[in-house]
């Protein structure tokens, strides 16, 4: 049977002006424009969002610290003979703790993903990166600043879409303990 699953896109989200974007999850979509729309619906509800990016999972080059420890030594010798292709800008994200999401570190300019990774490791060498994520700036579809209101504002006043609005667990615990629910309002 053929695979009918749509392609995978990684979703990065900024929770406030000036903050780094964070990896927030993955959506499936037939193309990148739909991925952005799906990302809005699936992830924007919580926490607050000011910007979202989507990138095809295939466009992301990702390596863990352990993988790099093995491969860098092997690929240390680069073919200097190959003419340098055009330089491109790459975004660099890094997972900084076991539990945390990948966070935006910055940008590097390089002629390939491998070169971008090397440049990133040099540029951000004082960060404790457990896993690197590198992708070309050109592979990203971003929400437009002009669309921020329809993209993000509606979710803000809709507290009923927030799971914190439904304290079912607390209520059940109270019912089990006391046999009834305290009406505190």
């Amino acid at each position, binding site marked *: 049977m053929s695979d009918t699953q749509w392609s995978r896109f990684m979703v990065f989200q900024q929770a406030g002006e000036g903050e780094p974007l964070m990896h927030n999850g993955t959506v499936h*979509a037939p193309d990148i424009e*739909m991925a952005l729309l799906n990302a809005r619906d699936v992830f924007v509800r919580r926490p607050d969002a000011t910007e979202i990016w989507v990138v095809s999972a295939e466009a992301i080059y990702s390596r863990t610290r352990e993988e790099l420890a093995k491969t860098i030594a092997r690929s240390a010798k680069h073919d200097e003979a190959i003419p340098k292709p055009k330089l491109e800008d790459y975004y660099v994200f890094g997972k900084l703790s076991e539990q945390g999401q990948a966070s935006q570190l910055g940008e590097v300019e390089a002629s390939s993903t491998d070169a971008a990774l090397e440049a990133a490791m040099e540029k951000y060498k004082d960060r404790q990166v457990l896993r690197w994520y590198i992708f070309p700036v050109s592979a990203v579809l971003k929400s437009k600043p002009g669309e921020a209101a329809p993209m993000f504002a*509606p979710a803000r006043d809709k507290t009923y879409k927030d799971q914190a609005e439904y304290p079912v667990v607390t209520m059940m615990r109270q019912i089990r303990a006391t046999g009834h629910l305290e009406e505190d309002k």
Partner: protein
Amino acid sequence: MKKALHNPLAQYLIALADDELILGHRNSEWTGHAPILEEDIAFANIALDEIGHARLWYELAADLIGEDKNTFPDKQVFFRPAQEFRCLQFVELPKGDWAFSMLRQYLFDALEAQRLKGLMESKHKPLADVAAKINNEEIYHLRHTRAWVTRLGLGTDESLRRMQAALDELWPYAQALGAALPGEIELVGDSLVPSSSKTFVSWKKEVSAFLKEANLKTIEATVHEVDRAVHSEYLGVLLKDMQEVAQTEPEASW
């Protein structure tokens, strides 16, 4: 605003609200059944938005006719018989397949976009404010449904066939979107609401061009039924489902 126009404007708003409510309820029937998880969430959001818009219109209407805006929406939604609803048959039709629901939502969103432009200019300030708030969500709805119409129209033979079948069925019903709403004729003169026939002309121009680009053909259609007091057989079934729980325990608080 003239006192004599309060009631006509309330009737106008209730009709708008009924369209949003019934379409929102129809769309909610996809929850748990949409073709893919992400779309399930997205379309449930859109359904919820439309029902939220219905509430806003009912509340505005309540203010105009001296009703309690906290209880009026629930009374309208859960305790009115079918013959008192003022929605179009266009929104009553069963959800059909995915193509049908997407196309209907697109046609409705495109009409709302045009109408909201006029409502945002309303001389009744509370109405203009609510229209602006709703418009903010509708921009996104339209983007979402336009994306689907294009992809299904230009997709596979099957998706095109289903879209064309949906359009053939919906188009005659959609023509009723151009008919004046209850109270409208008195309200247009005082710049309280836009003229539906003018809104409809802009809508038809935009929608026809967009559908054509998606490889879909509109046929010349006669208006199906413009009287908002005349309902299809489907409305009663929908209301029975929607009102059953509330009517079983009318005094319950939620």
